[in-house]
């Protein structure tokens, strides 16, 4: 047992994308039969490590070895498939083909006539699923499977190639509690049969539940590897967040608690995403909505902005109740919105800064639906000045701007109608440090001018300036943390770990 070489060992792995270092001299060593956890905050280098370990990308430096032997060449797909498989969050099955065909794609069984024998393909698929006790009808189109069944099928497919080392990339993100329990039971069973797992998760609770060893990555580097049992939760969270000193936002005027609420959310629920959420945002207040990627915080913010309609509950903005699920109604009620992903929802890349910035206020640009170009450019110049957008002029297409300046255009659009409530999702994602500081400074300015601000983010820097942070975990608001928190405390709450418990 002790003599057996590790299933996989990566040493000194460095990977760069342009000027960004995705992995810096990283290492991981996974022993036979372990269930090894890989944790780290967004951008820690987990995905890059997975693509290096599965042979999708070659590292710039460093070596990978499987069972003591060097990894196959990148072009030798079969070689890689016999050693390692990854079940991604994004499905790699073909939905219109049957489960049986997905399992044996491009290695169908041929009959004597040289044609595919569907009967024997189905029989072998059934045998394979039975071997690993996966209860799925192989004749079903794979698109009809639910997430849980799909994962089992993908695991079985990986095992059928001979791989006994499987990477699970956030397998529990889309599962409910019962399905998670079944998945864990399956992992334990397979582990007993000699399968090794690398388990990537944002939920530290799960790491403690089923993993033997945990490896922490932070800022593209390997931080520590330790047996799970010997690592207290607080230390794990500390390793993930780093030894950054506690810093609170610059002292700001105390928010007027007695001022009128600009947003009142009462018992809002949306099946499968969030449940029974109630909170208020007062004029002049900055409220954070923290939570992991799939916690439901994004959906709550989108509900307020009118992108989604809640199944139940009431959204009241400045005393009015805009029609649920209607963005124009929300705009009219005075909501400014910075969406989650600027590339998808934030701007139209080919259109000019002026057009993008005034998308929400066509009625102010001229009469009877006509647009007065001069007035529009006036608005735009005003915004360019206010938000310090670096551009030669308002007519430049947004695609020609840097990430930070693009985000400023999105912000400009949100501010164009002088909102009483500003809702922002991940407002500084993919933005350089300078623009980030500027944008967050602007947020404080807006709050001081009397608007309410709601920031839905998992980025600690965004949340630092909030007067209070509501933590969303699995669709519920589980904690309210006043300004001046310690990083560890907020991260622990977002990961669903109770540090005191």
């Amino acid at each position, binding site marked *: 047992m002790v003599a057996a070489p590790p299933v996989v060992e990566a040493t000194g792995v460095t990977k760069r994308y342009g000027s960004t270092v995705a992995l810096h001299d990283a290492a991981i060593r996974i022993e036979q039969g372990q269930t090894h956890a890989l944790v780290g905050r967004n951008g820690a280098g987990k995905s890059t490590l997975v693509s290096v370990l599965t042979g999708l990308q070659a590292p710039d430096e460093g070596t990978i070895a499987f069972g003591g032997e060097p990894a196959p060449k990148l072009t030798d*797909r*079969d070689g890689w498939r016999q050693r390692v498989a990854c079940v991604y969050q994004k499905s*790699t*099955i*073909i*939905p*219109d*083909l049957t489960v049986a*065909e997905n399992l044996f*794609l*491009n*290695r*169908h069984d*041929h009959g004597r006539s*040289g*044609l*595919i024998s*569907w009967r024997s393909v189905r029989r072998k698929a059934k045998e394979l699923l039975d071997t690993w006790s996966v*209860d799925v*009808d192989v*004749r*079903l*189109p794979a698109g*009809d499977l639910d997430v849980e069944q799909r994962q089992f099928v993908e695991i079985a497919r990986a095992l059928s190639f001979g791989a006994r080392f499987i990477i699970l990339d956030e397998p529990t993100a889309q599962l409910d509690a019962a399905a998670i329990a079944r998945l864990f039971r399956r992992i334990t069973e397979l582990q007993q049969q000699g399968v090794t797992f690398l388990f990537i998760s944002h939920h530290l609770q799960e790491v403690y539940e089923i993993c033997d060893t945990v490896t922490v990555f932070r800022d593209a580097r390997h931080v520590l590897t330790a047996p799970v049992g010997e690592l207290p939760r607080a230390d794990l969270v500390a390793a993930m967040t780093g030894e950054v000193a506690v810093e609170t936002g610059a002292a700001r005027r105390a928010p007027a608690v007695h001022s009128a609420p600009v947003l009142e959310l009462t018992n809002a629920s949306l099946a499968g995403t969030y449940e029974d959420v109630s909170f208020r945002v007062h004029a002049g207040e900055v409220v954070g909505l923290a939570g992991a990627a799939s916690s439901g915080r994004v959906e709550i913010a989108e509900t307020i902005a009118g992108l989604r309609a809640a199944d139940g509950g009431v959204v009241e903005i400045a005393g009015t109740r805009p029609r649920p699920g209607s963005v124009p109604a929300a705009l009219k009620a005075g909501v400014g919105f910075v969406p989650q992903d600027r590339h998808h929802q934030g701007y139209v890349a080919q259109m000019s800064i002026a057009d993008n910035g005034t998308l929400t206020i066509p009625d102010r640009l001229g009469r009877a639906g006509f647009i007065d170009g001069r007035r529009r450019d006036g608005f735009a110049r005003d915004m360019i000045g206010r938000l310090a957008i670096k551009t030669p002029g308002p007519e430049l297409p947004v695609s020609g701007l840097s990430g930070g300046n693009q985000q400023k255009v999105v912000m400009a659009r949100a501010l164009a109608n002088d909102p009483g409530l500003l809702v922002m999702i991940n407002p500084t994602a993919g933005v350089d440090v300078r623009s980030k500081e500027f944008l967050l400074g602007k947020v404080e300015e807006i709050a001081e001018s009397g608007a309410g601000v709601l920031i839905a983010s998992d980025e600690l820097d965004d949340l630092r300036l909030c007067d209070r942070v509501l933590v969303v975990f699995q669709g519920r608001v589980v904690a309210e943390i006043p300004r001046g928190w310690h990083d560890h405390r907020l991260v622990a709450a977002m990961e669903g770990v109770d540090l005191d418990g």
Partner: protein
Amino acid sequence: MADTAAPATTGAGRRIAFARLRDLALIPAIIVIAIVGQLVSPVFLRGDNLINVLQTMSEIAILVLAQTLVLIVKKMDLSLESTVGLAPGIAAWLTVPVGAGHGLGLLPGGWSVPITLAVGVLVGVINALFIIRFGLNGFIVTLGMLIVLRGILTGVSGGQTFFRLPKSMLYLGTAEWLGLPASVWLCLLLFAAGIVVLGFTSFGRSLYAIGGNVDAAKAAGIRTDRVLWIVIVTASLLAALSGLLLSGRLASVASAQGNGYIFTVFAAAVIGGISLNGGKGTMFGAFTGILLLFMIQNVLTLAGVPAQWIGALNGTIILIALALSRVTGGKAQD
């Protein structure tokens, strides 16, 4: 565990049964049209009328077959309809003697069939070069090709019709094998081959894999570019064959031969259950699609609908058929 599994399995059984039925979705419609046709005119179900329907649809049915292959891999080929004219057109131009037939008479008549097919392959190679090698959008590339190829045919023919085609060119369009026109045989055999290839060979299945999820197909070790090359070139070759049958039957190549076919081809494929988003549909379904369209046309002709109105009715029928297949298919059309 056991009691939860039971209802799931029956539900699954129903879904599987439904998926198979989808393939036969147009059969009831075809039966209804047959009955209506018989009521309208007792001629409808007579053997010679049915053969007539099959023969008039055979050329365009081969185009449907070609387009089906292309659609399943999530591409489109609009230029097929121009290839129908250009391939036999070039052959006629080179082989028809100088004079009333408008040809150049540069080559003996025996060359006409090989030239027709070679032009088809060449068009396919050019399409594939643009789409696969240079990564251009297939819709736009083949739209360009549609116009260019049509223009070339108009150019070489001077807008006139080639007559007095060599014998070898006429053979497939006019011959009868075992009492049925050769073009009907060819069409049915090609569809039978298509059903077998798509349903029972690794190559055929790789088409579905590529159309459904190209990354997953690559990950499964399928050489996607090679498959796409074969599909695009084969489609053009089939279009050339279709053109050969049509010229043979009409004993001429008009400069507008094939003009407007592509709309019927797309309509038949989609009615037959082929998804424009790739990866979905069967060859049998495509065949029922084009068969249904031609049966309806035949019934309208027998019913004495004035020829001027056939176009409007055709379009209406396509829309109704699409709506019906949407209802029977159960999902939003893609």
